[in-house]
């Protein structure tokens, strides 16, 4: 029986999974970089102060949510992953499902609330523009994104959410500017 349960929880990490995590980190960074880039150049293209204020509000809100995601990721890496391997920049432990889930259960509900409030905030900024393609978080975030996930998959999902946060920021920024 013990053996059979061990079979249930036996996972290995593939090169594909590792590269997907690294690529999503990069995707989120690029999305953020784009927002910052256009923010920097915004005064050149508009004299509308209210537009600049709106953009600053979007930037501040997205940066705060993204920071919460990074903090949770760091907590997972340090506490569950036993730190980072300096060579690979990956956690020393990549699987650890039980420990990952224990830590996530305690932190996901507040994060879910933050994400839902964030979407409402973005919708209020963009109330005069169509936003059908805004990424939203419906239902139970733990169930839809983290249940039974390994440490690597969990930090991948956190990066995936970070990508969506910056995607939303760029999307709203473009819509309110046009």
């Amino acid at each position, binding site marked *: *029986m013990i*053996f*059979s*349960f061990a*079979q*249930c929880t036996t996972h290995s990490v*593939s*090169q*594909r999974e590792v*590269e*997907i995590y690294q*690529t*999503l980190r*990069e*995707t989120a960074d*690029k*999305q953020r970089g*784009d927002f910052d*880039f*256009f923010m920097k*150049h915004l005064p*050149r*293209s508009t004299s509308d102060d209210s537009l600049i204020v709106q953009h600053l509000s979007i930037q501040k809100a997205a940066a705060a949510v993204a920071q919460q995601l990074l903090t949770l990721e760091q907590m997972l890496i340090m506490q569950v992953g036993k730190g980072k391997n300096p060579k690979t920049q990956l956690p020393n432990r990549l699987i650890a499902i039980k420990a990952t889930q224990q830590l996530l259960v305690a932190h996901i509900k507040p994060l879910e609330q933050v994400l839902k409030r964030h979407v409402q905030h973005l919708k209020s900024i963009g109330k005069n523009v169509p936003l059908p393609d805004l990424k939203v978080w419906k239902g139970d975030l733990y*169930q*839809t*994104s*983290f*249940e*039974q*996930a390994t440490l690597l*998959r969990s930090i*991948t*999902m956190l990066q*995936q959410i970070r*990508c*969506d946060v910056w*995607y939303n920021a760029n999307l709203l920024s473009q819509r309110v500017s046009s």
Partner: protein
Amino acid sequence: MVQCQPAKPAGKFLSNAGVSICYHEGYNMRQKLLYILLPFWLGLMGCDKGSQSVLNASQAQKVLKSLEMHTQWWYHERQWYLNSLRKRPSKGDLATMEGMMNKTDEIIQYIERLKADLTKYVGKGIDPATKMPRQLKNKRQVSQFFKYFEEEFHTKFSLYQHTLRDYASSAQKEQLYNFSGQEEDQSFLQTHLTQTNVIEALQALTLLQVKVFKNEYLIWGNTGFNYRDALPGL
């Protein structure tokens, strides 16, 4: 003593036709073995929870969408570069870069076709309710799919790599990613597409598109031209 013989269609200890069984002591041993193995079997069955696999597929689908977002990012970025290059008074590298990017577009479109065929033939199309392929778990068919295209894949990538190297400097050549790998077991197909289900394979192919764009960037990104100076739409 344990006596074994082919099964017959009668007798209280005989099982299904074609299966060798054992009488008396053998039966007791089988029974004991069954008691020992049953929990193992049930445990293994417990691993295959339908709801869990659906959740994992939905996680994988979200990751796939974000990877696709990244390929789009790269596509727009190189388009930005090309458009800025066209606006420059001195056209310099334009024809060379356009030629190289056309070759990259061809390989990107080839990967896109692989993704479409994989979704259509192995994934049995997209389920409108879930927006995911209808068949998700068939790893064996995914493996057969890539086995079928293996030779074509290697030929196309070898040709592309060869062409790309023509545009690269000696230093850049050293940095270029080798999609076919130095050894057979290091090829992208072996390292990223072995033992994958449909969505995982789609993820890997999208990752491959990102790698192709990043690889090409090693060449056009090092030309020293600040293409972002010309802002699109501002």
